[in-house]
């Protein structure tokens, strides 16, 4: 049974494209046949994050408008022969496709792949609606910041109203030291506010920047903490029971002591 999963966020810049690239690659590493789809028409980026920008001939709009067959537009990944990218058009705008086109596309991809991962544009307009139209499930990405969490709340409402069920949450760019100091909302804080299921907590990690610079994805780098966290998310998507590590444990004794001093007494917390 193949699954179509859309990754969205509301707010821009919280890690949708990075998550799509990493989860798609991680699922392929597990042996699944995966297509990642860039639904951000006019602002194509999944290709550069995966280092495939030089191989694009056709794009999603070409497929929808019948200028090529789906197979011709799919670009094979550099590392995994069962991982393919369907790039977005760069010179068109979001109105070039409609929800029905995206449903038809998703159903066509479904026949060939175990997983179809769709990278949604930011926002709540047409592009976002197109991106979720063909999805069976939706993953919401947020960071532990007020603006991102607020937008995530809005998006959750829209996803539920669209009949896609309750989405699952990935909290990205968590800085454990700041959380311990009381200067960043914790995973629990965000979960309590958004009240949906958590499928991943990704630590803030500079290797994401360096791997993106090179057009590689972090899950290929065994030393990347964010990469390992994304691999865990991919295993959870596949149905494995993977414990959610508490990121706060990764810090030193000094930070812990400092965190305790800075914290208010337990009783007054909630």
């Amino acid at each position: 049974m193949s699954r179509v999963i859309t990754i969205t966020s509301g707010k821009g810049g919280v890690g949708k494209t990075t998550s799509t690239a990493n989860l798609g690659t991680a699922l392929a590493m597990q042996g699944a046949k995966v297509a990642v789809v860039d639904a951000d028409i006019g602002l194509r980026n999944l290709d550069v994050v995966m280092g495939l920008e030089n191989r694009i001939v056709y794009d999603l709009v070409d497929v929808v408008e019948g200028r090529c067959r789906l197979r011709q537009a799919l670009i094979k990944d550099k590392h995994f022969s069962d991982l393919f990218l369907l790039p977005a058009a760069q010179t068109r705008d979001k109105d070039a496709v409609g929800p029905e086109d995206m449903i038809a596309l998703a159903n066509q991809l479904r026949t060939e792949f175990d997983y179809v991962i769709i990278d949604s544009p930011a926002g709540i307009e047409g592009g976002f609606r197109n991106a979720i139209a063909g999805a069976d499930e939706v993953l919401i990405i947020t960071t532990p910041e007020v603006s991102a969490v607020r937008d995530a709340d809005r998006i959750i409402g829209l996803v539920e109203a669209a009949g896609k069920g309750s989405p699952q949450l990935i909290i990205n760019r968590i800085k454990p030291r700041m959380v311990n100091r009381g200067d960043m909302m914790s995973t629990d804080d965000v979960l309590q506010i958004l009240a949906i299921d958590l499928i991943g907590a990704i630590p803030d990690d500079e290797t994401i920047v360096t791997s993106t610079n090179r057009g590689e994805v972090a899950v290929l780098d065994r030393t990347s903490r964010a990469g390992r966290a994304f691999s865990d998310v991919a295993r959870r998507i596949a149905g494995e029971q993977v414990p959610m590590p508490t990121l706060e444990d990764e810090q030193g004794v000094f930070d812990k002591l400092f965190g305790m001093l800075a914290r208010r007494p337990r009783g007054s917390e909630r």
Partner: protein
Amino acid sequence: MGVLDGLFRRRERSSDIARERLLTVLVHDRVKLTPELLEQLKAELSAVIARYVPTVDPDTIEVTLFRGELIDHLKAEFPLRRQR
């Protein structure tokens, strides 16, 4: 205020401030009550109340959204003009 005061005074955790602000904003977002709609609500409420309680001053009506422990609520206050 000495240096020691600064050192020992408990700084309010900015993550707590973030959480509180978010929860308050989300009460409004989720109810979808815009400031314009709130004004309209107040105007209509005052018209109804005035029919029964003429001593209500329409300019003093307060309608506020509150975040509660278990449920959120909309609270309206209608101060009455004192009469002899």
